[in-house]
């Protein structure tokens, strides 16, 4: 915290914002939830992250689970999608294989993810966020950036107060908790939201940013993946502080555009704006099988369900795709990815499936696979998609049928109607 500056204090319960008081509790309401920071009234870029989102939603809907460890995830071979804070005390973490999670915490309640429900809750959260600013950029179902710059006049509140009010409203209306990170750019706001989880509120100010970052690993910088980390480690750089000591020119000469980014981020500079459109570049889905699969019919049955899922994502996002990617992981964990371009942009499960199934046909050679995935890249707006096709006169009818199925599912649920091939594997070819 910067010296010589007046420290401001926010009460997260009664929203009182004033110069710091001497006591441990709010002089107005007596709450201990006080947030003190010198730049509290000057920061306006925030990252909101729901705490153990999927698990929190499940606990909300099943109050008897409130104090029990809850893991949301799929199947024997699946991974943990979310673990509640009770489960985390046993060492359960997101992305951990389910069998390991259950070794650590055998009495946990395991719940299959209900993505439709989480998406609905996420939309509700987003509506609440949008009441504060139109500049909301969702990163995923459970986190978003908010730019509250210039909203003081509108809300008659400082951004910090608005954020505390939003967090309180989400708790009250939806029944889940969020953690807030407040700073002056996206990079630091996202780091801040991790600092005080769950139900937290953390602040990183301009003056403290370089010092704060110095002891952090370079991996927290956006775009520094494992490969880059290895490269940096080979050059003796593990911590951001070790980047701060380097010349900008050296970094650029050595790492190109990434060097420029390293230099800026290490100093706490990040000029990326909060982009409400949050342009999506790809939509994908994948499944790990209960037991390895090698035959085409069984793989296609799973592929069809993935195609439907990805297609739904495209339709919801009002996008179409010009290309599909098939992802396969062999029993030996070797990854195979194959790409195909579609003749014309489409958002229909039928089209995505046809293209991916053609790719799959070439990969089925007796190899046993443990995972299959389907992704759409080259996203584009849907208007020209799925126009009638001279080489496939029935395409229009099939498209209409698919859209009719979508409408039925919207009314009666996803299980109301489906294609046989998603349920039973196709008969093996004669």
């Amino acid at each position, binding site marked *: 915290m910067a010296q010589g500056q007046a420290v401001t204090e926010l009460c997260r319960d009664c929203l009182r914002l004033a110069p710091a008081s001497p006591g441990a509790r709010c002089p107005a309401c007596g709450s201990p939830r006080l947030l003190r920071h010198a730049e509290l009234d000057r920061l306006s870029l925030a990252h909101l992250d729901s705490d153990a989102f999927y698990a929190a939603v499940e606990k909300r809907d099943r109050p008897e689970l409130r104090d029990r460890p809850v893991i949301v995830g799929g199947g024997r071979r699946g991974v943990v999608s979310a673990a509640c804070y009770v489960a985390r005390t046993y060492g359960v973490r997101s992305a951990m294989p389910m069998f390991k999670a259950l070794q650590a915490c055998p009495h946990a309640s395991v719940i299959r993810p209900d993505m439709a429900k989480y998406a609905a809750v996420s939309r509700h959260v987003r509506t609440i966020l949008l009441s504060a600013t139109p500049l909301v950029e969702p990163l995923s179902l459970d986190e978003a950036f908010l730019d509250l710059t210039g909203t003081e006049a509108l809300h008659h509140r400082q951004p910090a107060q608005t954020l505390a009010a939003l967090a309180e409203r989400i708790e009250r209306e939806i029944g889940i908790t969020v953690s807030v990170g407040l700073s002056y750019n996206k990079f630091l706001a996202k780091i801040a939201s991790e600092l005080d989880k769950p139900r937290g509120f953390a602040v990183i100010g301009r003056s403290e940013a370089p010092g704060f970052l110095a002891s952090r690993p370079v991996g927290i910088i956006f775009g520094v993946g494992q490969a880059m980390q290895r490269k940096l480690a080979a050059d003796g750089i593990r911590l951001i502080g070790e980047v701060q000591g380097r010349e900008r020119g050296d970094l650029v000469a050595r790492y190109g555009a990434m060097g420029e980014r390293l230099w800026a981020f290490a100093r706490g500079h990040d000029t990326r704006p909060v982009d409400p459109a949050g342009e999506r570049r790809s939509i994908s889905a994948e499944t790990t099988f209960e037991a390895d699969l090698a035959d085409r019919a069984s793989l296609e049955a799973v592929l069809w369900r993935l195609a439907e899922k990805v297609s739904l994502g495209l339709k919801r996002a009002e996008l179409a795709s010009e290309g599909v990617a098939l992802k396969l992981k062999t029993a030996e964990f070797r990854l195979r990815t194959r790409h*195909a*371009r*579609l*003749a*014309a942009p489409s958002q229909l499960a039928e089209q995505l499936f*046809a*293209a991916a199934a*053609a790719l799959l046909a070439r990969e089925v050679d007796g190899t046993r696979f443990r995972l299959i995935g389907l992704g759409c890249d080259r996203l584009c707006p849907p*208007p*020209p998609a799925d*126009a*009638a*096709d*001279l*080489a*496939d*006169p029935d395409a229009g009818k099939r498209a209409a049928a698919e859209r009719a199925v979508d409408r039925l599912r919207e009314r009666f649920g996803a299980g109301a109607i489906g294609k046989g091939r998603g349920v039973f594997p196709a008969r093996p070819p004669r």
Partner: protein
Amino acid sequence: MKLTIERSALLRSLGHVQSVVERRNTIPILSNVQLVAEAGALALTATDLDLAIVEQVPAQVARPGGTTAPAHTLYDIVRKLPDGCQIELSSSADNGRLTVKTGASEFSLACLPREDFPVMNEGELPHVFHLACRDLRRLVEKTRFAISSEETRYYLNGIYLHAKSLAEGNVLRAVATDGHRLARVEMPLPEGAAGMPGVIVPRKTVNETFKLMEGSEGAVELALSDSKIRFTFDSIVLTSRLIEGTFPDYERVIPTDNDKQVEVDRRVFAEAVDRVSTISQEKSRAVKLALTKDRMVLSVNSPDSGSATEEVAVGYDGGQLEVGFNSRYLLDIAAEIDGENAQILLADAASPTLIRDVSDASALYVLMPMRV
């Protein structure tokens, strides 16, 4: 093997066979051309395993034999040798080299044994008939622009060649489509073709055959089964696999009752489309045709680059209509219309549109409109 051959004859034949050879090959010998010298002729063979071409060219053979040598390299060498010279080709089994000698130049090329060169087994080809090169060329020329390059629907990657009985008589038909446009061209059915199966001839085969027929006034023999096709010209034999799969039922998409009829000067129309499309976006290339009585206004509106309009006098009396097309597709079709006037038959702004040559009933084109 040892032989002497006239440079221009060798160059011509190498030119034919080397274009079958792919630039990149995982199997090394597929980069080579097979040379076999026998009884006063040199036979050159090239293949990519889907397509094989054999050409005979007269040569003075001193010692019969054969080898295989890198096709593109050999072609480049012969191309650079002086016109009119005699080239001596020789190889012996022991050193694995092909020597190319003329005047003061001498080249030695690494060879691969002739025994390893893949032979395409053409099997039995029960359907045999003859066509004038001119006629086959026309079938190919007017349809090949519509061949799809989409991998998923591989059965569209060629020209569908089949016999059809019509009330007016039997025809040999070529059809190609990529889903956006379709070309259908026919000619009277040659004798012997009546029982032929419908076959899909791959794009590369189509293009190679087309090149071989350039300027030829002769005839070509077609022999085919349901998996292979063979084209025999005077001294060249091209054998190809066919695309397995079922060509879609294209007749269902050819509109029969489009009643809005436009007649337009083919050249004037094409030039106008070309001009207004200058500013259309790279991706959509949409051009709008607004029709009122005897008038067509072509326009392109691009939010990024601006707008263009051009008016063309047409024969039209079908009521007001606006319809959009991909300008490149319109130009492709216009380029295949030989007559002075084109006829465009529309139903509405979303249905398949028919385009025909007013003076030639044997060719027709179908084009899907675009939303504009």
